[in-house]
């Protein structure tokens, strides 16, 4: 998956597990950037009586680097607190929830937003903002969309925020991919699969009908650009920002055994989860290094550059699909660093390689989602993004409908290598290989406006 349960330790701590990060120039307000960080992945909609929520003991952060040093120039911090209205009931709601202040809604979650500048100065932008409830079902919540809309808040400082449950729009054929790298549309070409199948399979979206908890923020572009300009050109280095999200926990927790109210949390925040580019920690970083990756800052990512330069998946593809990736196999034998992947994932793509495009942040190698904010949203999005000439798509930031799994596989298979090596001819299969899914395989429809992710699946309609 993009980053759902991608490392051994965080897979045991879903409340702090960042599963997807999106950053794109907002189609509903092109003078802003929308950043969405998803947590608490793989929620089954029917999850009463204790529905999912953010961790009151987790510090959630969205970081923006505006000058290419892989250190945050702006950090938005989100802290949550949960309140019970009624200590005498076991129920999440004791009647219908028709508004955010409904007396029938027993367990509510609130949050604060704090902005930290490049000097470490904190400013609390808002306190006690309300999350919408989880989508229990039509009986309990007759108009969920209205509640979610009411939970979108425009801050006095200029940002728009939302935090709460949403439908997970990430699409991936998880059961197939982690069964020895099988892509169902190519299962009959697979090293093992060719003995089992004589037909191409149809991909299955493993994350469909699951929910996540999203932290979404829409920020005026002039606030995130290094020079504060409202208008910049795509070739300007100041047009590019790097984005990542992280979750941290207090270093010490002491459980006193009489309910959480008496527990002790002290010490500095320790980062337990991090996400920039989708799939970076999942399929680039070896399992033995994944927990370390989650604990480090992007400025430390030089440590992981070797895994980008010679990706394990790049060596596996010619083995798993015999005869389809011979040019890639020959390239692998040269043992040359994959300069294309190093640029895409760790420094950004410099000017001169793709007409009218760059998202380079300089020499510091760091896993950040790099977005050229001067490139306007596409009128017609293409799911293969930059690989299909859609300059507003991944790896220029990441939109919700971008097929990041297939884009990443194609890039590793060699389609981006000619950007830096004109003599390399990608295998024909490299431009055709894909997982076989699109955003249409995610059942929840996306919204046309902030926070864009669709209405969460409700437990009554999706009971299992």
């Amino acid at each position, binding site marked *: 998956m993009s980053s759902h349960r991608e490392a051994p330790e965080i897979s045991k701590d879903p409340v702090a597990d960042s599963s997807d990060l999106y950053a794109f120039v907002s189609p509903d307000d092109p003078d802003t950037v929308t950043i969405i960080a998803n947590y608490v992945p793989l929620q089954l909609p029917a999850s009463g009586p204790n529905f999912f929520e953010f961790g009151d003991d987790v510090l959630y952060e969205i970081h923006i680097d505006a000058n290419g040093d892989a250190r945050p120039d702006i950090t938005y911090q989100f802290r949550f607190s949960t309140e019970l209205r009624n200590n005498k009931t076991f129920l999440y709601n004791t009647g219908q929830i028709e508004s955010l202040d409904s007396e029938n809604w027993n367990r509510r979650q609130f949050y604060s937003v*704090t902005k930290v500048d490049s000097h470490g100065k904190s400013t609390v932008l808002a306190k006690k903002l309300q999350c919408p409830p989880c989508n229990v079902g039509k009986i309990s919540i007759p108009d969920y969309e209205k509640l979610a809309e009411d939970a979108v808040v425009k801050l006095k400082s200029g940002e728009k925020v939302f935090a709460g449950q949403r439908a997970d729009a990430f699409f991936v054929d998880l059961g197939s991919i982690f069964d020895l790298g099988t892509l169902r549309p190519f299962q009959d070409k697979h090293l093992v699969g060719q003995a089992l199948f004589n037909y191409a399979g149809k991909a299955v979206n493993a994350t469909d009908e699951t929910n996540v908890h999203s932290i979404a923020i829409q920020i005026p572009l002039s606030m995130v650009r290094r020079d504060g300009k409202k208008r910049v050109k795509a070739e300007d280095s100041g047009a590019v920002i790097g984005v990542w999200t992280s979750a941290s926990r207090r*270093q010490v927790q002491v459980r006193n055994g009489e309910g959480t109210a008496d527990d*002790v949390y002290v010490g500095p925040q320790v*980062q337990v989860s991090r996400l920039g580019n989708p799939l970076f920690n999942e399929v680039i970083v070896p399992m033995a290094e994944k927990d370390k990756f989650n604990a480090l800052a992007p400025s430390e990512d030089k440590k992981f550059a070797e895994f980008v330069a010679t990706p394990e998946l790049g060596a596996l593809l010619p083995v798993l699909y015999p005869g389809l990736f011979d040019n890639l196999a020959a390239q692998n034998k040269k043992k040359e660093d994959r300069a294309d992947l190093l640029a895409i994932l760790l420094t950004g793509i410099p000017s001169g390689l793709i007409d009218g495009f760059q998202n380079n942040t300089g020499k510091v190698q760091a896993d950040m989602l790099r977005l050229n904010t001067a490139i306007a949203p596409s009128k017609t999005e293409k799911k293969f993004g930059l690989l299909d000439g859609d300059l507003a798509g991944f790896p220029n930031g990441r939109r919700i409908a971008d097929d990041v799994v297939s884009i990443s596989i194609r890039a590793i298979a060699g389609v981006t290598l000619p950007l830096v090596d004109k003599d390399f001819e990608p295998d024909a299969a490299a431009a055709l290989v894909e997982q076989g899914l699109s955003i249409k395989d995610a059942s929840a429809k996306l919204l046309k406006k902030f926070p864009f992710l669709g209405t969460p699946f409700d437990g009554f309609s999706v009971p299992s």
Partner: protein
Amino acid sequence: MDRRTILALSVGGVAVAGASVAGISLAGESDAETLSSKDDSPLVISVRDAKKGTLDVFSGNSKKTVTDKKLAAQLLKAAGR
């Protein structure tokens, strides 16, 4: 041994160092929303190396590493070791 006793023991002649461990962030943790380090707030001491007297002291948003063999020995005794 209560917390005030520990504080009293730890102020005399001990080396104190701020936290500098990868993954630990103090950025933005000084505002009013975060933990207090007042006298009545919790404090946790971890004996990292009893022989060297290396102790990690967690209070509020901070961690300080101190070296105090005498205090380490007293803590071990209090723990029945």
